[in-house]
Structure formats: structure tokens, C-alpha cells
């Protein structure tokens, strides 16, 4: 199975399916009988504004799969990059971007996934961080309800690096945001957070896997989400601590609120530990808004819808409290508030 090959060769038998263990809740082969034709070229002039417009930073555009293939942050340089991944129409496309942050460099990557039409898209990103480098990746994804979209990030860290990300999504017809991290330990730190707000029949799959390969690494993870109507969320978080990766510290939490009895959350947190002296914990909860709390809030005068969105906003807001970039986080907050104002 390879989505990239399936798109390039227009071969539906190569689409990931429920028979692939890691894709069992995000079956693409069962969904798409055929792979759509290659997408048309998109003119940059047609693309409107992105959610991070207005922030300072270097703009990079991937339009229906066409865009730059390499991005380099040289040693000790500090840069903000605004990456828009825009898809239109009902075609299929796949692209790959390599990002290299040299030793001591700092990258703030503000990434958006927009449009999608009724097409199928894949964006793969390879990110490597040289010694002492850091990257914070903030993602806003708002796709069309008919689109099928996958974003994969492969991260390679070096000693004393820091990689942090916060994914925020409203899902798609079927969407997967996957993050794979090779963690060398040696003082490197990873934060993999996410928040989703899914309504109607939307689907979002947040899959992460972190492999601790050397001693003394830290990983922390907080994913929170809300599903309503007939939406479906998938959370798969795997942390592997290899033999020799002693002293690893890994914490993972996933908490979801289900607001409708036809909505669904499938969660699979996994810790595999083959090393010694490791501190690992995971916690997972799936629940509903507390009716007694809602009544208490309404007794104070809040209309039900407002009480619900206040609770939802504070529940998801804890994810934003962990974002480091001070100005972009306000964009994330506003984005979330707008998604919740639409009613919970």
C-alpha cells in the first residue's frame, strides 16, 4: 500500500484500506472505487486569502500539488514560513516537500490545508532538524466536505532539538493527519498536540508515532476533540521506546467529547516500552458535556448554546495554552472561536 503510488499510477488497489492495521479506521480503498484523474493546474491568483494571512513570514504555496520541493533554514537563522496547501477541483495529486533546519536554526511553520473540492490529495513533508535546532508547526485545516486528504510528516531530530506541533482541524469527507517522529533522545523534546471539531458526516484521523531511539528523550502529547452529528474522529498515538532508550519520559492524553449519539470516536493509544527507567503514561477519556454543569450555567443566565460552546472552548482551549508562538496562537484562538460559535 502506498497512497503516493496509488495516485501516481492511478491504481486503486494501492490505496490504504481497512486491511492495513494502521488504516483500519480510515479506509480509502473502500471509499474510492477509482483514483481520480490528475488535478488541473491552479493559478495562484485564484486562491484568495489563507488563515495566517496578515502574519509576517515567508509565503510558500502548494497549489494542487505544485510547489517548491525544498526549504532550507541555514544555521542559527530564525524564520517564520507560511505554507498554504490549497486544493481545488475533483482531481488527485500528491507532492512532497523537504524542510531542513540546520544546527541552531529556528523555524515557525504556519501551515494551512484549504479547499479540497471533491478530490484526493496527499502532501508529504520531510522535516529534519540539525543539532540544537527547533521547529514549532501550527496547522489549521478547513477542507471541503467532499474532499479526501492526507498529510504526512516525517520528522528526524538530532540531539538537543525541539519539535512542537499543534494540529487543528474540522476534518473532511475523510482526512488523515499523520506524524511520525524518530526521536534520538539526547535531550531532544517533542510535543505533538491536536484539536478537532467535527460535525455533519466529517471524519478526521490524527495518527502519530514516536520512536525513542536513544536515551533521555521527552515526548508529550495532548489531543482534544469534539464530535457532533454523525462525525467520526480517529486518534492513534503510538510511542515506542526502543531498547537502550533509557530515561525516556513520554506522556500522552486524548480526550474527546461526543455531542450526539450518532457520532463516533475511535481511539488507540499505545505505549511499547523495551527500555529501563522510563516514565510513561497515557490517559484517554471519551464523554459527553455534563448536563448538571449545563443546568448550573443556565441558572446563571447563559442560554444553552452559549453554555455549551463556553464549555467546549475551555475544553479545547487547553491545547492552545501549550502553543509557544505568541502572535500566531491568537490566530488559532480566533479560528477555534469561529468554529465553535457556529453552535455546539
Amino acid at each position: 500500500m502506498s497512497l503516493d503510488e496509488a495516485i501516481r499510477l492511478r491504481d486503486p488497489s494501492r490505496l490504504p484500506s481497512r486491511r492495513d492495521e494502521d488504516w483500519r479506521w480510515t479506509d480509502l480503498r473502500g471509499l474510492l472505487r477509482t483514483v481520480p484523474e490528475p488535478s488541473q493546474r491552479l493559478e495562484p491568483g485564484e486562491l484568495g486569502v489563507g488563515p495566517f494571512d496578515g502574519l509576517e513570514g515567508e509565503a510558500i504555496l502548494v497549489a494542487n500539488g505544485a510547489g517548491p520541493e525544498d526549504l532550507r533554514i541555514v544555521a542559527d537563522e530564525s524564520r517564520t514560513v507560511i505554507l498554504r496547501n490549497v486544493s481545488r477541483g475533483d482531481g488527485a495529486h500528491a507532492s512532497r516537500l523537504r524542510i531542513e533546519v540546520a544546527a541552531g536554526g529556528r523555524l515557525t511553520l504556519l501551515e494551512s490545508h484549504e479547499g479540497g473540492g471533491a478530490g484526493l490529495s496527499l502532501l508529504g513533508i520531510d522535516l529534519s532538524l540539525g543539532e540544537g535546532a527547533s521547529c514549532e508547526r501550527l496547522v489549521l485545516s478547513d477542507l471541503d466536505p467532499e474532499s479526501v486528504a492526507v498529510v504526512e510528516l516525517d520528522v528526524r531530530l538530532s540531539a538537543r532539538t525541539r519539535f512542537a506541533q499543534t494540529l487543528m482541524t474540522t476534518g473532511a469527507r475523510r482526512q488523515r493527519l499523520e506524524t511520525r517522529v524518530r526521536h534520538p533522545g539526547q535531550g531532544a523534546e517533542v510535543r505533538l498536540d491536536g484539536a478537532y471539531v467535527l460535525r455533519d458526516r466529517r471524519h478526521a484521523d490524527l495518527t502519530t508515532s514516536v520512536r525513542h531511539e536513544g536515551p533521555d528523550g521527552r515526548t508529550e502529547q495532548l489531543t482534544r476533540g469534539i464530535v457532533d452529528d454523525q462525525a467520526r474522529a480517529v486518534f492513534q498515538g503510538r510511542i515506542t521506546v526502543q531498547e537502550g532508550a533509557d530515561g525516556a519520559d513520554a506522556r500522552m492524553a486524548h480526550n474527546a467529547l461526543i455531542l450526539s449519539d450518532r457520532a463516533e470516536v475511535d481511539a488507540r493509544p499505545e505505549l511499547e516500552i523495551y527500555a529501563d527507567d522510563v516514565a510513561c503514561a497515557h490517559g484517554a477519556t471519551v464523554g459527553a458535556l455534563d448536563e448538571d454543569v449545563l443546568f448550573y450555567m443556565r441558572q446563571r443566565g447563559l442560554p444553552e448554546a452559549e453554555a455549551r460552546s463556553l464549555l467546549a472552548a475551555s475544553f479545547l482551549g487547553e491545547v492552545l495554552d501549550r502553543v509557544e508562538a505568541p502572535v500566531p496562537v491568537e490566530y488559532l484562538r480566533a479560528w477555534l472561536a469561529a468554529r465553535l460559535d457556529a453552535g455546539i
Partner: protein
Amino acid sequence: MLSLRDLRVRVGEREILKGLTLDVPSGEVHAIMGPNGAGKSTLSYVLTGRPGYEVTGGAAELDGVDLLGLEANARAAQGLFLSFQYPLEIPGVPALTFIRAAMNAQRKARGEAEISAPDFLKQARVCASDLKIDFDMLKRPLNVGFSGGEKKRMEVFQMAMLSPRFMILDETDSGLDIDALRIVSDGVNALRGPGRSMLVITHYQRLLDYIRPDRVHVLADGRIAASGGPELALELEREGYDKYARAA
């Protein structure tokens, strides 16, 4: 002000209020006492519109407005406030954020303008200092991790901020230490006045030494079994509820 006529309420299959009639005129404070399980909290919940309480008969009006036909939040906007016997925790929402949202929602429902941030903070500082509440506590998520007594104090703080005209205090004294009881009672007394009434539910005469009621009622087995002046509370303290026990 508050007028209840032959109110009958069921929870599930069980009838809890069995024809309760009560009048609390404007400006008065009435106490309700009664044995555990008599239906006192049920009365406070049904008046404030908690889901799950089925009114099978009777009427409840606040200044002529039918309460039972209104949503819980609309009743609050009418000026009805309940100090909960067991206040709830609101995770992640700082007390001040919550109270300001509640205040503005009530104002909006009444067609009034929102309160400005400086005016709100000024009022919060005054109320907090009257009730000896540490202002930093108001920045924490409401009631989360607060002690039983702190939660009760926060109820009265919210009441002072929202300035309702009909207040139901459901065992607001339980869990308060001796000093807190006095401070909270002073806070409650400051809210007394013309055009404002209260229903004070309590098990203890001691609260009524601080908050002097105009009338005292005994609620037993879903009805008002007796009414009298403040001396009735003293009599109950001496004699208990034996004589109001279900006379089959």
C-alpha cells in the same frame, strides 16, 4: 412576588411535591425548614427549571410571570437566582469569565447593554472584598478544587454580582465555618430590600439568627405543613419534626 399554587412535581415515577402552596411577598425573607428528603431542593430545582422535574399540576409565578413556561436561563434573566446546595465545578472557565458571561447574557435577554470590562472589574473587587474572597481565586476555574465552604461563598459572590430580585438559598450555611457564616450572612443581608425577596432553606436556627426571616415554613412530605413567625424555627429546634411526620 413569588406565588406558588398547589404545585405538584414528579421525578421519574415518584411524586415529590404534592400540592405546595406558598406566597412570598415583595421585600420579605421566608425560611423553609423540613426533614431530609422532604422536597426542599426539589422545590428550588423546579422553580429554576432543572430538566427532569415534571410538573403535573399547579402554578408558579414571579410577579405574575409564569415561571414554568420559561427556559432556565430566561428565568434567571427574570431575576431568579439559586444558591445551590451542591455548587458545580466548571472546568477551564475562570470564575470572572463565567460571571461576566452570565451577567451579559442576562442583560442581553432584558434588552440592556453589556457591562464594560472596567465597570465589571470594579464591581467584582467590591463584592470580593465584602465577602473576604481573595481576588486571585476569581481567576481560577469556577469551583474547581474549591473547598465546600469556598464554593458556598462563591455562590453568594455570584448572587451579589448578578443582583437578582428573587433568591433561593439552598443550605447556603452548610459547610461554612463560624466566621464565614457571619460574613456570608452580612452579604446576604446587604441584598435585602424593597423589591427583593428570598427563600432561605436551612436546617439550622443559627443561620436565622443572622438572616432574620419574616416567615418560617415547614415543608414536610411535599407540602407546607405549617407556617409561622421566627418563633416557629425555635420551636422546631426544640421539638423536631415529629408532629409533622406523615399523618396518613
